[in-house]
């Protein structure tokens, strides 16, 4: 019984400190508690977005590939997802940053031509995600 009581106090104490204050940071509102290791673990808890998007490479035949499936890029413009006109779709910014960083750190180009696109989907309850279009960010020469 002593052990259980101690556990209950620990759990409640943790929950209290984790929830008592939540701060905004650069990547979101109410995403940090007072101090490590306290947190409410509320990531992915919010009302789901109806739109989703992802950065992909689209080849001449219209087929899409992961950007990391290419090793070298020579693009018409730098991949800056924050400044792009395609930046309005809901996205996970750190994944976009990783992708932009991947392209930037793999210079060189190659024989194939692809477009770096933001592919958009509409996600509605009870239905499969519906593709709603692509927004072209840059044209690149790439090597696989």
């Amino acid at each position, binding site marked *: *019984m*002593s*052990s259980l*009581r*101690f*556990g*209950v*106090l*620990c*759990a*409640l104490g*943790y*929950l*209290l400190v984790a*929830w*008592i204050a939540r701060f905004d*940071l*650069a*990547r979101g*509102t*109410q995403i*940090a508690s007072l*101090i*490590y*290791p306290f*947190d*409410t673990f*509320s990531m*992915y*808890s*919010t*009302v*789901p977005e*109806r739109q989703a*998007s*992802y*950065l992909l490479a689209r080849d001449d035949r*219209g087929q899409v590939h*992961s950007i990391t*499936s290419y090793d070298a890029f020579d693009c018409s413009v730098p991949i800056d997802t924050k400044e792009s*006109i*395609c930046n*309005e779709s809901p996205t*996970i910014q*750190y*994944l976009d940053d990783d992708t932009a960083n991947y392209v930037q750190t793999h210079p060189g180009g190659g024989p194939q031509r692809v477009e770096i*696109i933001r*592919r*958009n989907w*509409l*996600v*509605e*309850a*009870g239905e*499969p*995600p519906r593709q*709603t*279009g*692509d*927004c072209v960010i840059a044209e690149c020469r790439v090597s696989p």
Partner: protein
Amino acid sequence: MTDRSITRTLRIGLATVVALDLVAYFFFVADARARAPSTDWNWLVGAVSSMPGRSLLMVVGIVGAVSFGMRPGRLRSGAVALGALVLLSTAHTQLFGSPWRHMFFSGLTLLGWLAGLALARSREQPEDEVFAATGSRALLGAAYFSASISKVLYGGLAWIDGTSIQASVVNQTGMVADTWLNGYRVWAAHSPGIAVAFAVATIVVEGLGIGMLGGRRLRAVAALGLVGMHFNIFLLTGIMYGESMFLLVLFGWPFRELTEPEPRPGGVLDTRIFKPLVAVLAVGWLGSMAYQGARYHRWYAEETDPPGGSPASSPRGDAGEPDTPRRTGIDRLGPFVAGSDLAGWSLVALDTYAEGLRLTAEGPPGRVVFELTCTPSEHTSPFDLGDAHIFHEGPVSYDEIESLGDAIRQEIERATEGRDVCESWRAWAQAAESS
């Protein structure tokens, strides 16, 4: 196994994860510092994230973790390791702009252990680690319980309609079914029933995480459910919570029960103190949670329905919600090509719907949808071509989309020269839907 050998196993496992996280933070902090959008950080973040700072913290923290793991009751060594984690995590969070939650589990499990050691010390049994093991399990369980409650509080019923799972898979993987794993992801995202099942299971399994406080069977079931959930999340999104999976296996393992410490009068576990303390903590937690929930929903309402309403649009004929699209992701509609530029805007989507065509354009002011319809309407738009209406909708002003609207009208005029506009639109829609 004796009490000592069980707690020794737990302690060494915990110390190992803490040491590994300290090494990981050394690299993560360096990466976050190199990629931080600004160098305008405070002196503490600057000092901790510098090469000498993070090296020193990693070494000191690892020494503390090793010392903590070697013998029972080493409260100070554990506190040193936890302190190093606190500083490195704080710097990383500030530089990156968000906490990395998978790195929190080693810290909170260690914190629970140290709380137990502190209690044992106050009872003059500094090497008794029964409370320490309980503290670690309690905090592990509380973390998952909080995750479950968060989904109910923030997302509500909408969280279990499956879209949270579907959107996560899409946002994390891009739905390129080029491997068997991506095939599984695409299948799950395209199966609304499966997505609902995963969403409900996530809330239930996380909520049952508090079972880590229970007996060995309940603990094992709770840990097994959480490990299974993490594994499925890894398959679906590539997000790996390796540290927490290891800690769940370790602290959820059905070792025999440790010898229960004797009750003592006068401490925090004494009924006369325990009950009021529980009441105060519970009220404080529930109040805090209600406050944070209200804050979030107020913010969400402002985000989705800003004061002043939506900006100017030319109204659609029936002034209702647009009809469900009949065909989306169309490459070409008459003269319009998806991905092409028009008057400085990019055409990002072309769709057909029951009453006509829909063009979605993105430009510096934002996103706007033009609906081309010949359905009779009492409303008109400045871009209309006789009875063929060109309505627009979106969070942009008329001035911002005037040139785009004119360009769309001119493209239509060129493409339909000598022909009926409405007939042409129907032909474009038919061609797109049959292709």
